[in-house]
């Protein structure tokens, strides 16, 4: 009689199960990164001959490339803004929504909608909102009597990055919100009841009992925020293309410009490789320091 174990270690079957997905993944993600590493050591300009120049590109990027540094600083700024502005609002609204009874579901849906819209629409829509001629933002400021603040939001090197940050906070809000909401739903009802019996008011209930229990979910949300902010690119590419100056530059966008606008394939590939290394290091460090075992939900 055939046994399950025997069937389940059939080499040929395993090959045909694994090969299709694995080959696509290798050829579209892993192999290209390998190629980037190879070309990162060259001075290739896109066409014709190229020379191997050792670590020149990498040295240049790490020690002399100001734009690379600005991109990293902007990613850090984006991350901090997400964690310290978006997340507290998300936690606050998630708590309020659990008290909204039959409106809970519709409110949840509304808050998440911006997150499922194409990034192209989001970016172009917000570019219109910031537009100095017909933009919504300036009109709103006029209406509420703050007309003196109106300006070309994306044209001001000091403000443009904040304009970009507002868009990413709006667009990514649904994710942070849903994570904290799921965390709240995981708090057992008995705890609320016990706290109430002990005479705790709402403020004590949340600050002493509920919010500390959100810590595991906060870890997940923070890791997600850091990685998403590092990988952020489309919003900047479509709204400012890194400008004015390089004030809104991000790694993905800088890489794109170097590769496709200036055709510096060698240098562009080196940036790609460093981009991957930065993301991998950050992911590994975060996972190490913030254990994110929250179980299934």
């Amino acid at each position, binding site marked *: 009689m055939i046994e399950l174990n025997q069937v389940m270690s059939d080499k040929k079957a395993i090959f045909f199960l694994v090969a299709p997905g694995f080959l696509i*993944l290798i050829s579209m993600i892993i192999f290209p990164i390998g190629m980037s590493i190879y070309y990162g050591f060259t001075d290739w300009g896109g066409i014709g001959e190229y020379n191997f120049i050792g670590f020149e590109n990498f040295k240049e990027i790490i020690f002399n490339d100001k734009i690379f540094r600005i991109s990293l600083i902007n990613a850090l700024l984006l991350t901090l803004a997400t964690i310290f502005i978006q997340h507290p609002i998300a936690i606050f609204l998630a708590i309020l929504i659990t008290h909204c009874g039959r409106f809970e579901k519709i409110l949840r849906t509304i808050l998440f909608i911006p997150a*499922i819209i194409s990034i192209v629409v989001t970016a172009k829509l917000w570019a219109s909102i910031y537009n100095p001629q017909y933009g919504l933002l300036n009109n709103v400021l006029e209406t509420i009597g703050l007309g003196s603040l109106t300006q070309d939001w994306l044209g001001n090197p000091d403000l443009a990055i904040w304009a970009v940050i507002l868009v990413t906070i709006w667009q990514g809000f649904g994710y942070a919100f849903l994570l904290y909401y799921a965390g709240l739903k995981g708090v057992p009802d008995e705890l609320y009841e016990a706290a109430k019996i002990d005479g705790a008011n709402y403020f004590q209930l949340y600050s002493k009992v509920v919010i500390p229990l959100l810590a595991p979910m906060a870890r997940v949300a923070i890791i997600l925020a850091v990685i998403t902010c590092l990988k952020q690119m489309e919003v900047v590419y479509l709204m400012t293309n890194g400008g004015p100056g390089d004030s809104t530059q991000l790694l993905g966008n800088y890489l794109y410009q170097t*590769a496709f606008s200036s055709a510096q394939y060698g240098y562009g590939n080196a940036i*790609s490789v460093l981009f991957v290394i930065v*993301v991998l290091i950050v992911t590994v460090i975060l996972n190490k320091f913030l254990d994110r075992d929250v179980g299934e939900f």
Partner: protein
Amino acid sequence: MENQVKIDPNITISQNKKKKPLSVGRVVLYIFMAFVGLLQLFPLLWLFDYSLLNSGQFFGDKIFQVPSPPQWENYVSAFTQGNVLPYFFNSVLVTFVSVALTAITSILLAYAFTRMKWKLSALFMNIILLGMMIPIHATLLPNFIIFNEVGFLNSYWALILPYTAFNIPVSMFIVTGFMQTIPRSIEEAAVIDGASIWRILFSIIFPITKPAIATISVVNFINCWNEFIMAYTFITMDKFKTLPFSIIQFVGQYSSNYGAQFAVMALIAIPSIIMYLIFTDEINKGLMAGSVKG
């Protein structure tokens, strides 16, 4: 006595649930939340509002304008001038093939990882985890070079293959999580009856895995439908461009036709919103699983 004790809490609970007294606090909460919801949706409401205005009306200083009459022509121009229809078709084709291919390959991989016994299982799993961490943007240049070499640029494959690749890891994890909950006894019985591995997959595993397949498929639909930067990089010929292109193209060609530009944006956004409204729970579940793992 015992009965009374048992019944009492039930009564109070059901009373609490049914008759929530509309206290002042609750009214304030509802008003506040309605305001928050409106604020969050306002950019989109503004988009739909302005997509029905004629371009001249854009320069008033009102925040919201009642379109009188609504300029439905904007949507007509979007369709006729913005190449929306062929791009729409390309988006549908690329999205559906990618979603199907991702579903099939992810189920096969998940089955291999949850049920099959092989030595390299852990190694392969780690490589897939690695693939999940690599940013899409880092693959744009090398993939452009490769596609250029093998003649993939300006073809549907230049989109379908990378879309599938980037969706496989999370999809596989979602299906894996689901498969782990399926009891093995069903397969044991099937094996005793002489069923082959493929027979087990097609007649037992696929039908049971349906909820997980639904989840990954709607999430991947949204991902592929909205994808922009790969399409923008690997496609230059009109024949293969997908829907998100139309707005870029439209802004370039008809830069003063604001109303129609807004109509194009609305046309790209609407399918995602409808998808989300129909499959809210699946999408939330899938995205959450994705963010916890990814």
